[in-house]
């Protein structure tokens, strides 16, 4: 096989794995969302479809596929069709730059654990893509020709823009420590237990809260607030188009959790573990272990997302805006300032170079 063909095949295989893995993860997140909400409410949750109800999500998706796809009479059909595609497309595009581990070698062929390896604007790409995600929701709200949808779309636009600022600013401290936008480099900068959650606790909290807002999860799920907006931007969507929005929401949740793991929890870095295992650098087993560590850090955060959703009531809209602009933005700016001052001082006294 020519080297080009090999590269293309590996790329296609990786994309296939990530797209399918992400959809499966989203499907099972829905299942766990229902299970955990049930446990919190002293119920059992889905347990009929398959053992322990494990195939419930597939039954749901099958139902959505079988349902009639209704487009409102006065809707803007083009945008009504495009909006869910933007949502899911953007949610998946982010995974082009998210690394799941170090590269490994098959023979002398280096295989990277990310679709687009070595991209030096990885973090910017993720932030940019999550901003494009708002188009999907806003277009959905606008094209539906429904006042509730429009309100949901507008809310989502305002909310996402407000929280994106503090989200982006909270990451600057991390960037100052790592000195790179490449996600792999950021993870490597946290090796040996120097996780950013310990160095940047305020930034972590800001990022956590902002990612709740960015993924439209409770307590910031105003764009789809059921009691006020009858479902918000997806009121006029039915069948699999609604399902696609649903999947995109959960895919975004996985993205936000993955970003938290990579930026604040040291990605696949784990002190002592790799020294104990003593696996050769570049072996596929090491990469698999790294992926396992990554996943093990991802799961508690996903659980936290679900846990918070079923514990905390929705914010009022003015509270949401107050929190975003008057609390989190100044706090993020102050965090940058303090990080900068401390770094200059440490450099001056020779603790870091």
């Amino acid at each position, binding site marked *: 096989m020519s080297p080009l063909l090999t590269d293309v095949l590996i790329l296609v295989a990786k994309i296939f794995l990530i797209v399918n893995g992400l959809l499966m993860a989203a499907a099972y997140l829905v299942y766990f969302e229902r299970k955990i909400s049930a*446990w919190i409410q*002293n119920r*059992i949750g889905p347990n009929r479809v398959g053992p322990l109800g494990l195939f419930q999500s597939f039954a749901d998706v099958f139902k959505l596929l079988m349902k009639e796809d209704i487009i409102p009479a006065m809707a803007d059909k083009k945008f009504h069709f495009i909006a869910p595609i933007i949502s899911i497309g953007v949610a998946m595009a982010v995974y082009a730059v998210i690394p799941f581990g170090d590269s490994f070698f098959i023979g002398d062929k280096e295989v990277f654990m990310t679709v687009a390896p070595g991209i030096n604007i990885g973090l910017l790409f993720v932030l940019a893509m999550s901003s494009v995600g708002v188009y999907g929701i806003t277009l959905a709200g606008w094209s539906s020709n429904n006042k509730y949808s429009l309100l949901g779309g507008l809310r989502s636009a305002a909310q996402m823009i407000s929280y994106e600022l503090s989200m982006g600013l909270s990451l600057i401290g991390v960037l100052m420590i790592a000195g790179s936008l490449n996600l792999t480099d950021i993870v490597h900068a946290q090796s040996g237990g120097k996780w950013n959650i310990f160095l940047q606790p305020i930034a972590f909290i800001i990022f956590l809260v902002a990612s709740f807002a960015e993924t439209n999860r409770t307590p910031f799920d105003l764009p789809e607030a059921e009691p006020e907006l009858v479902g918000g931007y997806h009121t006029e969507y039915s069948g699999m188009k609604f399902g696609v929005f649903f999947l995109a929401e959960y895919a975004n949740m996985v993205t936000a959790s993955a970003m938290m793991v990579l930026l604040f929890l040291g990605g696949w870095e784990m002190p002592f573990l790799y020294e104990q295992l003593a696996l050769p650098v570049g072996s596929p087993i090491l990469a698999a272990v790294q992926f396992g560590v990554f996943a093990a850090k991802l799961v508690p955060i996903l659980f936290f997302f679900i*846990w*918070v959703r079923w514990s*905390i009531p929705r914010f009022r809209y003015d509270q949401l805006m107050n929190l975003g602009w008057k609390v989190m933005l100044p706090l993020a700016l102050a965090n940058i300032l303090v990080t900068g001052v401390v770094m200059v001082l440490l450099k001056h006294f020779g603790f870091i170079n």
Partner: protein
Amino acid sequence: MNVEKNTEKNRLNFWERIYLPEIARGLGLTFKQMLKPKMTRQYPEEKWEPTGSYRGRPVLVLEEDGERCVACSLCSRVCPALAIEVQAGETTKEKERYPVKFEINMLRCIYCGFCEEVCPEEAIIMSKDYELIFTNQEDAILGKDKLLIPIAQLQDRLEFLRQYR
């Protein structure tokens, strides 16, 4: 009114105002809930057994020598939903009257129990049956064949009526 008295700033102290400790408390509460025993009843397999006070489907009491009902039509009169239809007939038995036709339209029945209350013979009573499934309107009109239930199965309700009526 002094609007500065009851502001968020005055009501809440600093830790309450920054939300996070209170949110952590709330999360702790829900986490404790997760570990508690579950309330779910697995319905089709695990059924609820109502007590005698339960007002389910109205039925006619069937004794060893036939139904108690004497077709006085009081239940039919009192029924607010006009669900009951009775046609009387004569027999040579001691009671002399019996219902030739006794029909309850279960789509109309509101389970108020007035028929039971008004019945002088304690012949129509509310049962424990809460699983009523019909696939068309004709099936929902229950005739004597479905309404007559042996007295042995209705002891709980009769005991309840004896005690509390």
